[in-house]
């Protein structure tokens, strides 16, 4: 197995440094309380709009869609700064990270014009509709179905769970079955539909987390009409589209920076140990972002992404233990502990990540 493509020796980069300084200045001026999991739990339309005004949402997109055509490695630096600071970036997070890129890769011109500029302004928010009550790790088994109507468009029935912020977002990108399941071809017959969360037949119910917070939801679809114009990509091509999205999702720095704000009370060798792991992960994650700029044609970074996620969740958990061992209080320690089971579950469990890695190694 060749790990060479994973590692780039990166030199100093003035373009990245300049953008990083801008973000730091913005964060110094901004008014927010640092939090754990700011990208999941910190839903703030005001903060997202302010970021949008600075050009930090959809920053890699073409300018005609509201982007600034920044290279991925510059976006990576911006994201890192926001996460390390514990900023409330949840409202625009999924739209910026995966929905927007998916619209650019698979969307129609009309969809791109309709959605991308508003996302980039920090005004339009999306949820991701993948998991269902009976489909978690085995995503191909989803049962929410979309039935073609003679008069055109689709009728959607089923339910999605763990849909972050569906109670506050505008649309959900849902993975649905558009052809009957075929045991010989489990990944065939799936499609992605952009569903308006305010449409008749959509019911959103909160799922309270064990810490009392509400960001997850169950979204029930009862004969919800979705026009043809809201199908993302090709009917029946949902699975490869989703796999691609997940790769981009998994390799980002949120996979190891969720508990970074807690490190302020750790010192000595304990800090040194964690520093070395975060350092290594930063090199890996930055390298993946840089490689995306160089090799878009090479395909999604599935193996690299799984490696970063697996390593990263280990670090996030160990940060909590290190803070506890100092015996010193930290304002975010309670929040972090209550959120901790989610680190190794969300976006693909550790066990699934390791399965992907094992297959990628040729086992």
């Amino acid at each position, binding site marked *: 197995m060749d790990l060479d493509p994973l590692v780039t020796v990166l030199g*100093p980069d003035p373009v990245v440094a300049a953008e990083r300084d801008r973000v730091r200045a913005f964060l110094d001026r901004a008014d927010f309380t640092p939090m754990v999991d700011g990208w999941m739990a910190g839903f703030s339309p005001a903060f997202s709009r302010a970021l949008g005004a600075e050009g930090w949402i959809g920053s890699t997109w073409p300018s005609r869609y509201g982007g600034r055509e920044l290279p991925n490695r510059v976006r990576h630096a911006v994201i890192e700064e926001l996460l390390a600071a514990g900023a409330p970036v949840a409202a625009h997070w999924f739209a910026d990270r995966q929905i927007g890129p998916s619209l650019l890769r698979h969307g129609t011109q009309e969809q791109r014009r309709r959605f991308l500029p508003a996302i980039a302004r920090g005004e339009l928010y999306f949820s991701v509709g993948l998991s269902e009550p009976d489909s978690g790790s085995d995503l191909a088994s989803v049962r929410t179905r979309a039935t073609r109507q003679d008069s055109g468009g689709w009728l959607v029935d089923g339910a999605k769970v763990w849909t972050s912020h569906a109670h506050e977002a505008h649309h959900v990108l849902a993975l649905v079955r558009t052809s009957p399941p075929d045991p010989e071809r489990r990944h065939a017959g799936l499609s992605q539909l952009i569903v308006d969360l305010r449409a008749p037949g959509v019911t959103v119910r909160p799922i309270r987390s064990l810490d009392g917070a509400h960001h997850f939801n169950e979204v029930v679809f009862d004969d919800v009409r979705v026009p043809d114009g809201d199908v993302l990509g090709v009917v029946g091509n949902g699975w490869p589209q989703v796999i691609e999205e997940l790769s981009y999702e998994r390799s980002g720095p949120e996979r190891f920076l969720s508990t970074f704000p807690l490190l302020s009370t750790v010192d000595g060798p304990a800090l040194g140990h964690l520093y070395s792991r975060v350092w*290594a992960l930063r090199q*890996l994650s930055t390298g993946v972002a840089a490689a995306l700029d160089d090799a878009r044609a090479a395909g999604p970074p599935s193996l690299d992404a799984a490696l970063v996620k697996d390593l990263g969740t280990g670090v996030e958990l160990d940060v909590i233990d290190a803070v506890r061992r100092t015996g010193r209080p930290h304002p975010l320690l309670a929040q972090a502990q209550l959120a901790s089971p989610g680190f190794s579950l969300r976006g693909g469990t550790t066990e699934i990540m390791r399965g992907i890695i094992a297959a990628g190694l040729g086992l």
Partner: protein
Amino acid sequence: MTEAGTLAAEICAAGRWEALAEAGLDRVGLAEEYGGVGGDLLDAVDVARRAAGFAVPLAVADTLLIGGWLAAAAGFALPAGPLAVGVAGEPVPWARAAAHLVLADDSGVSVHPAGTYTVVAGTNLAGEPRDRVRVEGGPSPHRPLPDDGSPLLRGAFSRAVQISGALDRVLTMTIAYANQRQQFGRPIGRQQAVRQLVAGMAGEVAATRAAVAGATAALGSAGPGRTPDALLAVAAAKVQAGRAATLVARAAHQVHGAIGTTQEHPLHRYTTRLWSWRDEYGGEEYWAGRIGEALRDRPLWRALTG
């Protein structure tokens, strides 16, 4: 990764220093004005990594990354042949096989040809020479230690590089074994427990490569005023390498089963090196402590982002 590294891989398999020297790989990455052959630190790192991945019984890394650098940085013309480096009080790797000894202590750096010192043989866990030396005769010329880093730091960097090379080899061996060894009617690599274990190995191997790459970049641009970045980067690489060495050696032996614990099977050549190198030039706890100290006066995120 580099042409020099690929060539080194072929030559190291033969195990002769002369072959390495004929190809000019014994002086790659070292200053030309002192007798180096050009190339940069990345080339030297790649050669050293490849040699480590073959468990070559030659002082490749010690010469390229520690001794050669130290002698050149102190202003000595580079002598031919393998170099052994003695850093204040520690056993000297390869002293009995070296053409020259490079000593660094409080009085500075000095270079001693073979024959001007006596050697008491010793070894590390892998059976590599870790000797005691006594320099004979009168005082020899000393030059001041270079400003841009310490021998201990360079030594730690070298071992991190070497560990990375050995980790790659151990991972490759383990995947091959898991695919080939059959039990219960199928390769053991099909078992979930084995897959999860090997996947964990791959993470640490990748993290170490990345940390070493970061340290190479930091050292490559090191100079007066940049030393704090090089210290943190190298220390982080050594801590990560030590962590990985421990986890990967353990998992590799677990997958290989009993046969991997025999002298006959090649795995021990690499795992004994991992166990040895993780503690040479400072173990994880030492360098984690140095990072902690360095971060007392620097905001954590700024230090990480350089």
